[in-house]
């Protein structure tokens, strides 16, 4: 079912018309589009009805659809304030003046956009698994980005590889979905080892203001704990989508093996038998529980998933259940 993100569209291009609900069909521009079986029109409509939830209003930039900490010109009443010189007389509440003979200005909640930063771990370890973890990460990023664009938020995609984060241009508006997909399709796995902590710090330095940070990674890094701490320390709300392949969740290994690290090339000699596998699973559960506990502590959302999880289940089940989307 899962096809590579950069898969070519069908030769006749017929189904490409359904992709992201474009009015005009230009197959030449859809070469890097997502697999239409995953992102068909119905699915996109469903995505557009979703919204990424924030626990607290944050200060945004442009006028948007989210409540801001600022008072503004929305229709939602927020508070009263005594009139001072320079205030807009249109905002005076004459009913209050009639009762109290004092001038009060009605304050309304400002609605602004929010920057949604999607950090996609593009380390070499993400290129493994069946389905590939990086492919899953890019699809999840596409789905979440689509939700963000539909909510008139700014969506910024950063690919973490090596020691840096390659930040793409911020996108805004649902019309930039194709651009988002194209940028995600261009993300490939790193050749060498990746220092996730350094890359995340680099990405953190690129954040402007507080918003929503979504990290999609396998966290197979010795300093994954610090990665979470550093991202939580940026003030943005943090969502960690921890993706592992089925082979990592339930290894099909047996015998005397030398396990070679895909990133570093380092080897570990193990004798895999049933007890070893049991120990591995225990170790894995403890490892993930550690992340979950840390996320709770840092008021972040931790979503452990397998790369074989359908994107629809991720979005409509997992993220909703954890109140990341709604």
């Amino acid at each position: 079912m899962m096809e590579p993100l950069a898969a070519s569209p069908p030769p006749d291009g017929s189904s490409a018309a359904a992709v992201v609900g474009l009015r005009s069909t230009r197959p030449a521009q859809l070469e890097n589009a997502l697999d239409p079986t995953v992102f068909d029109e119905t699915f996109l409509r469903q995505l557009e009805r979703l919204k990424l939830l924030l626990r607290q209003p944050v200060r945004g930039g442009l006028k948007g659809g989210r409540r801001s900490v600022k008072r503004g010109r929305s229709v939602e009443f927020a508070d009263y304030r005594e009139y001072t010189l320079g205030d807009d007389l249109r905002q005076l509440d004459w009913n209050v003046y009639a009762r109290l003979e004092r001038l009060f200005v009605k304050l309304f909640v400002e609605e602004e956009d929010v920057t949604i930063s999607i950090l996609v771990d593009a380390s070499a370890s993400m290129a493994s698994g069946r389905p590939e973890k990086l492919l899953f990460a890019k699809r999840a990023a596409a789905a979440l980005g689509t939700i963000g664009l539909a909510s008139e938020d700014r969506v910024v995609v950063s690919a973490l590889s090596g020691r840096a984060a390659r930040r793409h241009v911020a996108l805004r508006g649902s019309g930039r979905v194709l651009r988002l997909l194209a940028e995600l399709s261009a993300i490939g796995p790193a050749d060498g080892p990746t220092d996730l902590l350094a890359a995340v710090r680099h990405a953190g330095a690129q954040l402007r203001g507080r918003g929503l940070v979504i990290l999609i990674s396998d966290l197979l890094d010795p300093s994954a704990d610090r990665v979470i701490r550093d991202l939580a320390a940026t003030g943005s709300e943090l969502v960690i989508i921890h993706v592992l392949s089925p082979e990592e969740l339930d290894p099909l290994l047996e015998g005397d093996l030398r396990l070679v690290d895909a990133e570093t090339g380092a080897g570990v000699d193990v004798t895999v038998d049933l007890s070893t596998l049991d120990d591995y699973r225990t170790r894995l559960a403890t490892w993930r529980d550690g992340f979950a506990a840390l996320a709770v502590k840092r008021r972040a959302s931790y979503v452990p998933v397998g790369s074989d999880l359908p994107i629809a289940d991720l979005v409509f089940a997992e993220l909703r259940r954890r109140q990341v989307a709604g």
Partner: protein
Amino acid sequence: MPLIAPLALAGLAFIPLVVAFYLLKLRRDEHVVPSTLLWQRLVADVEANAPWQRLRRSLLLLLQLLLVAILAVLAARPFVERPAGLARDIVLVIDTSASMGATDVFPNRLEAAKQAALDALRDLPSGGSVSVIAAGSTARVIANGTTDLGRIRQAVGNLVVEPAAGDLADALRLAGGLASRVADAEIVVATDAALARPPDVRVDAPVKVLRVGRGRRNQAIVALAVRTAPSSVTRSIFVSIANLDLESADRRLEVWGDGRLLEARDVKLDPQSRSDVGIDDLPRDVGVVEVRLVGGGTGAPTAGADGTAAPDDLAVDDRAWAVVPPDRLRKVLLVGAGDPYLSTALSYLPDTEVYGVAPEAYGPATHPELFDLIVFEGTLPAELPRTAILAVDPPSSSPLGEVVGSLKEPTIGTLDPEEPVLHFVDLATTHIAAARKLVLPAWARTIVPGPGGAPLLYAGQRAGLRTAVLAFAPRQSDLPLQVAFPLLISNLAGELMGGSGAPPTAIAPATPVELAIPAGATGLRVTAPDGSTTDLAPATPGAATITFSGTGTLGVYEVRPTGGRASSSPSADGSPAADGSPAGTAIPLSSPAAASPGASVAASASAPPVDPNAPIRFAVDLFSVEESTIAPGSAAAIVATGSGARPATDPGASASPATSTSPGASVGPATGAGPIAPRAPARDELWGPLLLAVLGLLLVEWAVYERDGFVRIRRAIGARLPRRRAA
């Protein structure tokens, strides 16, 4: 623990080798994983839990080290010692006679005897040697003084029952000879002790008997003969059946001729008795007669009628074979004036050619030795031929009888109704005009008595030659005009030419047979009853006979000449002439009407001439009441043949007459050995428990190696059970 081969403990040197293999770096398959992060932590955990984890992972190593150690000890052959129950040198005599094939013990007595013998050898002291003698019809040494018990087991295991009468005395004699070579020897006899008489032998060694068998239920065919009637026209079968059981038995007797069932007869056999059964009118075309004793059980005569079930314990004596002697032309020479009655009566004899010669022409040139019977009519030569003779009206005294005068119209005396020559012959109306008065010789018996003790017809064996004398010429009586005359002549011819002679004697199993080589043949091919063939060649060129000794199987053997065309019958007794026709002056008589000996009278040769290339057949039958008597006898008679040379320490001591209680006693002058050395203890090697330990270790090692599989199966079952309960 004492070891037989302690050098084999050098195999323990493999232990460091196994450890070295474990210490050497294991060649592992490389497997690329996204990250070794979790695995590194896992390995760290495992190492942190040492040494238990290490021990657990080294369980296979420990098991393999243990396995190597046990195998090395096993190769060193550890043993425990115990007092030996047998002497240092054992002569094992195993009875393989026909009675050992009795099935009163499963599967038969021989197998039980073999097992008992091998069991007894467990008491053999270490280093003891064993000789094995098979006591069949002859005693055979099949293993001579070997210490290799495996070879002994193989030799004993190859023994089979011989369908022949056994000779235990011969075997004991041979065993005594083997035992006399050493000082500390003992003879162990495994037998059913079914002996007709105690073995007449003394051996200078203690004899121990392992007796097998317990039943005595057996009926046997102890005699079978095919008799030709004196007239040579009909044959009858004579069967003798013995019931050797203590209870009466109902059996069915089947007579088969050339594979065809000729007759079946139910016989009731009284205990410990013999029953004779005669069956007449055997068809003329039957060449081989087989008699089977089948069925059994009171009131169930048809049980086992198919011949497959043997209701007694010994089956080998329930079948017997007899070969019907082939018809052949008999040649009769009539010397005399040519009595037409006599020549006519002779010419009517079946399978007979009659030749005539005048008295003056008779002489050595006539080759009288080529004739089966010479009839002298009114004449006698000076020198009697060496063949059967019928003298009619002898003119003078001769070795055939003394003529003392003549009788006028002699009357015929009282006839013996049991006389075979007078079978169907009625002489009541016979009148004789004149006859010679003869004196009955000592070798003859009177057949037709005359007046005053003078015989009118007598017969007997004269110097081994069948001879009969008729005191009157037929034409001097009215006998030729009566029907009794051809009958009398036929009976006389049968008596004289061997028609009623003794049946061909059956050949006992494993008895050598002298086989004649026909002229022109270079050898013989003998086909045994089981279909196997043996080619025989004479030891020296031109030999007339070959001795064939491969008669170990019961049944009918067939002998054919090989290497050339036989020009005459291969029969050992031979034909009158090589070319089948008498030479000399004798002339075949062509017509019964022609009374003159010069004329020819037709030979009434109704039987075809004997095929010179026809095979000889002979039957091998057990016919041994002693072997068929399968009731186990007393072991004491066999034990008594030995001499107790040392105190018996074995469980069979009660059966052994231990006459000497001194360990240093000599076993007899025949040994010539010094004082007996103390008997070495018996050794029991511990390979059995060690082998079991090895097997157990292998099982444990396999279980350890496959423990993951067991756990998976257990989990799968555990996962399915709740589902089923829920369903």
